[in-house]
């Protein structure tokens, strides 16, 4: 191996790293600034709409690992009443197949991803935990009806606008939020 | 001159004391229970990507560069002669330069011989 380039290759590379030294870092300081995540995010929790769910059980069948535990009994007018709707979020792979299969739009993927827990038990989400609420919002994955309520995703591609200004990453609280379904 | 080296000696003593304290400190802290942890047989096995070590560790090592080591010792010895010359170069003048020239040319001869014999080629 000859040194045919007399070290110019090394110099070029070093020039490039030097150039990067003066570029703005692309880091998002996560707990302080948050990225607007994709509207179709398959977050780490499912969102369940109790009033829409008929307890048909399609979702449990669609799940590739039987992750949703559904216990129902028949109420009046032979409607199913859901006693237990449990999701083991420590096992769920958030593939979204259950959401896709639900014929009544009663299940959606969640937006939240800050779900780290100290104990395994806490990962099993009960019906109350899954039910939609103000801070438990569905994403638009397979539910295009929620599309408009969610803010635009912040893309690294558009990291900078025309003037070279760095795009602000909004804190979660300041984002435009829908009121849920 | 001895005073100067006395300072170096004091620095040496301080440095040794200082560096010995550093690993001793955790031992002390462990004695009074501030550092957790107890021995277990797995912990003291040597780390090899989580697998077991096969065979001896300190084996005879095929040190293909022993050749370089030999050359290094000899050349290092040659450079010793250069120091006294370097500080005297102006006083010694051309005579010194010639003497050193001889040293360096001999060095070059040895070096070229080594190169030609493929000693600098590490297969």
């Amino acid at each position: 191996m000859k040194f045919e380039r007399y070290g110019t290759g090394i110099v070029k590379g070093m020039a490039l790293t030097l150039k990067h030294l003066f570029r703005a870092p692309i880091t998002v300081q996560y707990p302080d600034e948050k990225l607007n995540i994709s509207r179709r995010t398959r977050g780490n929790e499912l969102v369940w709409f109790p009033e829409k769910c008929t307890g048909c059980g399609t979702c449990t069948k669609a799940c590739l690992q039987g992750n949703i535990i559904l216990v129902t009994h028949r109420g009046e007018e032979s409607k199913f009443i859901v006693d237990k709707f449990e999701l083991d979020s420590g096992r769920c792979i958030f593939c979204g197949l259950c959401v896709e299969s639900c014929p009544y739009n009663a299940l959606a993927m969640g937006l939240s991803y800050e779900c780290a827990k100290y104990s395994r038990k806490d990962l099993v989400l009960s019906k109350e935990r899954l039910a939609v609420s103000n801070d438990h919002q569905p994403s638009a994955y397979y539910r295009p009806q929620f599309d408009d309520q969610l803010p635009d995703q912040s893309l690294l591609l558009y990291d900078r606008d025309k003037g070279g200004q760095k795009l602000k990453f909004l804190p979660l609280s300041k984002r435009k939020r829908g009121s849920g379904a | 001159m001895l005073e100067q080296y006395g300072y170096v000696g004091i620095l040496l003593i301080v440095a040794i004391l200082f560096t010995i304290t550093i690993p001793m400190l955790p031992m002390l802290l462990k004695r009074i229970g501030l550092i957790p942890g107890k021995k277990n047989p797995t912990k003291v096995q040597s780390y090899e990507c989580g697998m077991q070590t096969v065979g001896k560790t300190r084996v005879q090592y095929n040190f293909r560069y022993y050749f370089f080591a030999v050359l290094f010792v000899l050349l290092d010895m040659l450079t010793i002669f250069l120091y006294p010359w370097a500080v005297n170069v102006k006083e010694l003048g051309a005579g010194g330069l010639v003497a050193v020239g001889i040293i360096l040319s001999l060095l070059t001869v040895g070096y070229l011989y080594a190169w030609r014999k493929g000693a600098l080629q590490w297969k």
Partner: protein
Amino acid sequence: MFSVGLDQYLILSAVLFCIGLFGVLTQRNVIKVIMCLEIMLNAVNIALIAFSQYITPVTLTGQVFAIFVMVVAAAEVAVGIAIIFTVYRNRESVDIENFNILKW
């Protein structure tokens, strides 16, 4: 308190020399023999430099000699170890016994 003079340095040198000599005579591992040789050469150097310091403090003759001794030591180690490698290649051993018969 004793005073440090030429005698003390020379005695130190003699002691080291004799330890080295004992080692050279008794060790069976060639590498250790070489190590003991180094001890002896070092002992000699101490004596030389002590002489240089006390007898010829201006001309530094002893120090010049010490440098030459070092040169010899380096050459000796280099060649010695080269020979060890060569013998080792054939005999797979560093026992001094194998070096007694210098025909391989």
